């Protein structure tokens, strides 16, 4: 509670200093311009300080951006965002086993080779409950993974082995169609045991406590102010990397400040533009691009037995008055966002076409009269005269407050339901979500790997991220069906059925699929925007020759 308030105050104060910071010229001449042709360097901006540059424990998007430049996993994405080998040269995937043959020329930034042991060690660390890695659940894909994450077995028993320095073998608990996509994730990046142990607590806390195997190495990290990544001379595919360095001379969460930096030729890309920044861009005749980051936002209900929202008819009543299109187009009003229709976003691939085309999600009918009937039913079933105020938990950001105020107004106007807004900072919101201290929560879910399963198992009864404790045997069975096979047809059918269950049971109210408007310097090409891992990615970026 105190942290929350102080935090907000500090942020308000920090904002003031940020403005000052942004207004003052950059610290060095070389970092003052977006594109430095002579040195073959570019400058970018980050929204905040990377919180944790340790691949074992990193969770935030900014850390992912940095880590995706300085580390490389077994599998990777190429210039066209297609899945390709990273450290792995060859691979083989069966229903129960994955084998990777590592390239012999993959090197750490100190020149030592990247070996299969580095991956085994890293994955054991992620699974080890003593590290409290948030993504430890990924390690349940391996034999013994679940028991290890629960602390019942020793991490060394994880079903992953190095047959020799360059061969890695993993035993899978179930057929995992998306396993190759999964190992691109940051938590699956290698960690070298001798270095990790030598650094102890200080590992990845600063530039000298880090070692990289990616295209770049972090060479400067002034906490809260500035970063610099230089090309890694030991990287095996160094010929494909064009830039000599990437500077991060600015860190600001203010979209307008980023836009101004871009207009002043200080950074090569300004992303996440809000309505006033897009207006600035429009009137300055800037070329704008849009990008969907794949995240789905929704209002999740608390299904615990002590909450009113456990009642299906109450949830149906809310579903029948909540118009995602109005929210997206009129209230949010930024291009790139798509009204949410389902837990499964439209970009997910199906068997031949998009999943949303093969299994169109059920359409919600907006009908206030019907909603009031549902509400009346709910009142009778719950045996109450008046509905007490329902709480809506949300992040303390301007955009989510605005959306919540709209929701609050719709519920009051159409159903006479009072909704109180419980604004919390991100971490506190997560803590309250985990504790189940909410009736509804404005939540979002971003994909971790390129497969519908990253969304599908979210509301399985065993998933710890199922914060509303939705429990349905039917739902669980569909998820199990999709997990039991690598046959895409059967799996996609199961995902289609899941979308139906989510709609019928009103597990969530889909709000929107997030998109961004951004501007990018025309002199730079090869920047990749991605839904998985760190976005944006400049690994293959290059400065176009002068025309």
């Amino acid at each position: 509670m105190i942290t929350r308030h102080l935090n907000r105050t500090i942020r308000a104060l920090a904002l003031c200093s940020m403005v000052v910071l942004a207004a003052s010229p950059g610290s060095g001449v070389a970092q003052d311009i977006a594109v430095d042709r002579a040195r073959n360097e570019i400058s970018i901006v980050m929204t905040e300080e990377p919180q944790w540059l340790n691949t074992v424990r990193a969770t935030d998007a900014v850390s992912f951006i940095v880590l995706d430049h300085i580390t490389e996993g077994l599998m990777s994405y190429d210039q066209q965002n297609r899945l390709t080998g990273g450290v792995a040269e060859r691979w083989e995937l069966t229903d129960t086993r994955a084998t990777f043959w590592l390239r012999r020329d993959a090197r750490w930034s100190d020149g030592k080779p990247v070996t299969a042991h580095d991956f085994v060690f890293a994955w054991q660390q992620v699974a080890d409950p003593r590290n409290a890695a948030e993504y430890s659940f990924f390690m349940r894909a391996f034999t013994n993974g679940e028991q290890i994450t629960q602390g019942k077995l020793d991490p060394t028993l994880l079903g992953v082995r190095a047959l020799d320095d360059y061969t890695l073998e993993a035993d899978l608990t179930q057929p995992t169609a998306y396993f190759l996509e999964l190992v691109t994730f940051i938590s699956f990046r290698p960690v070298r045991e001798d270095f990790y142990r030598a650094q102890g607590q200080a590992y990845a806390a600063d530039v000298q406590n880090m070692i990289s195997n990616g295209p770049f190495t972090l060479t400067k990290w002034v906490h809260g102010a500035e970063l610099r990544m230089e090309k890694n001379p030991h990287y095996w595919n160094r010929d494909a990397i064009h830039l000599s360095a990437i500077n991060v001379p600015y860190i600001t969460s203010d979209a307008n400040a980023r836009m101004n930096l871009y207009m002043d030729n200080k950074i090569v890309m300004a992303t996440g533009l809000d309505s006033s920044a897009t207006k600035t861009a429009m009137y300055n005749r800037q070329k704008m691009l849009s990008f969907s980051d794949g995240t789905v936002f929704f209002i999740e209900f608390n299904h615990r037995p002590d909450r009113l929202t456990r009642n299906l008819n109450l949830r149906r009543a809310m579903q029948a008055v909540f118009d995602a299109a109005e929210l997206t187009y009129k209230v949010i009003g930024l291009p790139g966002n798509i009204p949410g229709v389902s837990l499964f976003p439209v970009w997910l691939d199906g068997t031949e076409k998009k999943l949303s085309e093969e299994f169109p999600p059920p359409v919600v009918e907006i009908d206030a009269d019907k909603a009031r009937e549902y509400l009346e039913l709910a009142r009778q079933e719950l045996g109450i005269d008046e509905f007490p105020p329902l709480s809506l938990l949300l992040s303390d950001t301007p955009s989510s407050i605005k959306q919540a105020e709209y929701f609050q107004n719709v519920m009051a106007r159409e159903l006479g339901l009072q909704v109180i807004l419980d604004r919390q900072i991100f971490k506190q919101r997560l803590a309250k979500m985990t504790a189940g201290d909410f009736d509804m929560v404005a939540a979002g879910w971003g994909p971790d790997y390129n497969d519908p399963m990253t969304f599908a198992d979210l509301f399985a009864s065993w998933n710890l991220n199922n914060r509303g404790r939705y429990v349905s045997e039917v739902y669980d069975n569909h998820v199990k069906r999709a997990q039991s096979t690598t046959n895409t047809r059967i799996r996609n059918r199961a995902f289609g059925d899941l979308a139906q269950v989510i709609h019928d049971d009103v597990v969530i109210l889909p709000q929107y699929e997030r998109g961004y408007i951004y501007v990018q310097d025309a002199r730079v090409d090869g920047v990749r925007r991605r839904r998985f891992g760190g976005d944006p990615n400049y690994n293959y970026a290059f400065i176009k020759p002068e025309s």
Partner: protein
Amino acid sequence: MNDTYDPVSGDFEPLLTVTDGEQIDRPSLSYWQDVWLRLKSNTRALASLYMVLALVTFTLAGPLIWSVDPSKQDLEQISQGPGLGQKAILVPDRLPVPSINSLTQSMAEDRADGSGQRLDLLGEAHTEGLTLSWLAVANADSYTIYRHELEPSSIDDLGLPLAQVGPGQLSYHDSLSLEATTYYYSVMPIVAGQPQGYASQRVEVVQAIALSEARYRGLVPEGDDASLLGSTIRLEAHPLGTDSLGRDMLARLMWGARTSLFIGIIAPLFFVGFGLVYGGFAGYVGGKTDNALMRFADFVIALPFLLFMILFKIAFGIGPGESGIGPMLVALVLLSWPATARLVRGQVLQIREEAYVAAARMMGGGANYLVMRHMLPNVMGVLLVSLTFAIPSAIFTEAFLSFIGMGVVPPTPSWGSMCNDGIRTMLSHPHELIFPALFISATVLAFNLLGDGLRDAMDSRLRSDS
């Protein structure tokens, strides 16, 4: 030398008896009348007094006259600038979006006349939505639709990218925060990963409102739907515009003033009152008691306000989503009184030693008499001044706390929280920030100038000047 004068008794007759000595030929003025006179002659103070009065009227009587719900969201008029009610045409609730296949068919036939126009508007263009259609380009992988507020000058200047649609789709329905203005739509086909030219179309968008929405708000009479469609009605007027959720700024300012002035007046009344009693007692009693009391006041003055505000919020069990106004009031009262107490104590210490007080005491005046007759009237001046200075600072504190989100909760408005909302759209819709900021500044200024004027008017050394 016999010319000496012998006085006679007549010489010693008294002169005329003077019955009227000094005559007061102007009406007698009490201290307060004198103060008022001097205040009246101070134009600056008088103007701020009128401003304060106007503000109080605005706050108390305003909502009675302008009875608009401050939390009502008018999604047809989001972030509207100041003005009177706009005209809008009535449109059906759900627009029949033409099916794509039949559309392309009929479009292709329509365009067989060779007009050469590659991008067209289908039907009417209004703020509830509009549909565009374009001619297919051979081998196109996808089409990107853009919207600009200026006329596009090149392929790199097409404005906002609205969407990217597949090759089978040749129309697009746009309803993204449309305003009644002119837009330039463009469509850019992508062939083999490369953009291949673009086609633009100028579109005039008119204000519209869905029929059911208009009916819900009582803008149209009950009756035949079909005859109403297409007719023009006047939307609700928003004299000071609307905020980013279409809420009326004037109503929000009035209701926000209630929060601001409530804190701004109630809190100072309490803490100045308490400070008077505390400081008066300390000053009157004096000695060790005075010393102890004033050291305690020093201690209180050192306590950080924000921290206590948070502590009170927790101690009061103010849950999330509940208003923080209560704890704010308590924190203000409990932490702000020492300044007044010091002031009053100093004044009382001084008055206590005055000769007239000593005289009154010697003539048997009791404590009550001394306090009521001499002390209180004499500290009244500094008290009023400190009150008028305390009010703007309390208003400012409230605004600041609401700005950082510790005061009122949505949808309750306050000037501070309105500023916080408005700052996000400062560049595109400045009125959302300017109005609440103006009200805060004007109020704080008015109270400060009034306090200034009062201090001048009450200074007894200036008394003879008038």
